[in-house]
């Protein structure tokens, strides 16, 4: 079996590790030279099972293709449309999206019966769960094969509906949205909310977690879930997050978010 992963960002590299670590031949496709450079340590770690591809050939022999390009509907549709032209009709094509409609993405491909979502969690090598998201067009055999394959590489797949946020990102939304709403009112701080939730056993309070995920990433997921569910008031995106994004304070990666990380960044 041969696996092709489209995109060598954090998720693409992580997913590549999952398969290469189980001695499955993986090709990582990445046209951006800087991203290729960043992927070099992973390629070297799994040399023999993992290789890098900078240009797509006319014909792709891979059995499984996992698209892991940035979470942008237009970009994903363009990449999927292009790749599905080059594949055999029997190849399974999976999109690793966290909140985009899998059905909308399927419409861009020529392999609708063999297309579905595989939502891995970050860091992919360590997080066991994968949401498997069929559309109404996906063949049942493709769902079953996906579940078996993911189990064979040590994952715990669950079949999730193609609804905004699937299961995990939908259930988690109130943790962020309501916490933001409380802080927006101005009578409680992120630190106090984090302290209370961590006191209940959560590994990170909502604000510390948003800083880790990226406030921009978290905001985008909320926005998609809100739009996808036809704008329910309970998921209305936060102006506080929008303000942070506009100020470039997107969390740990920027050195600023709901907390300050400058000292850590200098280290």
């Amino acid at each position, binding site marked *: 079996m041969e696996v092709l992963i489209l995109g060598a960002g954090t998720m693409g590299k992580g997913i590549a590790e999952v398969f290469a670590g189980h001695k499955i031949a993986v090709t990582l496709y990445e046209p951006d030279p800087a991203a290729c450079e960043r992927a070099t340590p992973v390629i070297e770690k799994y040399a023999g099972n993992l290789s890098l591809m900078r240009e797509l050939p006319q014909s792709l022999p891979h059995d499984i293709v996992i698209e892991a390009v940035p979470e942008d509907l237009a970009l994903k549709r363009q990449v999927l449309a292009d790749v599905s032209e080059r594949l055999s009709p029997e190849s399974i094509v999976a999109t690793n999206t966290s909140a985009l409609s899998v059905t909308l993405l399927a419409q861009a491909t020529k392999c609708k019966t063999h297309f579905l979502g595989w939502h891995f969690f970050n860091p992919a090598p360590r997080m066991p769960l994968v949401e498997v998201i069929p559309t109404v067009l996906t063949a049942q055999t493709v769902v079953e094969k996906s579940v078996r394959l993911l189990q064979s590489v040590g994952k715990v797949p669950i079949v999730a509906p193609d609804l905004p946020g699937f299961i*995990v990102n939908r259930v988690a939304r109130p943790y962020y949205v309501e916490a933001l709403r409380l802080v927006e009112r101005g009578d409680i701080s992120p630190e106090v909310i984090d*302290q209370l939730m961590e006191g*209940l056993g959560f590994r990170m309070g909502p604000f510390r977690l948003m800083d880790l995920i990226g406030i921009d990433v978290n905001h985008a997921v909320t926005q998609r879930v809100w739009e996808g569910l036809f704008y329910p008031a*309970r998921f209305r995106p936060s102006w506080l997050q929008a303000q942070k994004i506009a100020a470039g304070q997107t969390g740990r990666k920027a050195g600023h978010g709901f907390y300050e990380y400058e000292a850590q960044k200098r280290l």
Partner: protein
Amino acid sequence: MRTLVIGSQERIEALMRGVGQRWQPDLWVYPTRISPGWGYYDVIVDLEADERSSPAFSVPSRALWVLSAVKKPLRSLLPAPTWAQRCIGANLLPVFCERALIEACALSEEAWSAFQSWEPQAVRVPDSVGMVSPRLLALILNEALLLQGEAALTMETIDLAVKLGLNYPRTISEWGKAIGWHHILHLMEALQTDYGAGTYPIAPLLRSLANQTILSS
């Protein structure tokens, strides 16, 4: 400090698994015919003040009263503003009172200062329905049940997703059973009353689970 805790057997047991251990209180399962010597105590904790009428306002006592104030805000429990000087609102629901810190609110600095000197691990929050952590948790559980109803998912699937995808300390069904689905429903109803059904819709499955809990108890 001489402390008395009043509440149902179930609530007293939950408290004594957590913060109650360091308070070393006398316990009074409420209501019973024999009433305690109210004047003897410096601090009296009513675990269900937001669920029924509290004896706090009708007995001879100068104690600091710590009233459960999650399903109703503290200000709505007090018969007159002067009571704010010796009343504290606290999150005393099962599970929440089993952690080391205690989530509480006050309407006067005098009351907060007295409370803090008795309970140094208090974390002050605004006086509003659901406080902070019960509110966030109730909304997560309610959302899981809304989704379960919409997508015909099993609770096992959602529990697995929450446990492995979110690394939450408990699954949805574990939280619901430990806190009590009826408490979650009452909290959602209170939020809906205060802020509207648009922002706080209640999952039909939450109502069924709460009814099952009430019927089986």
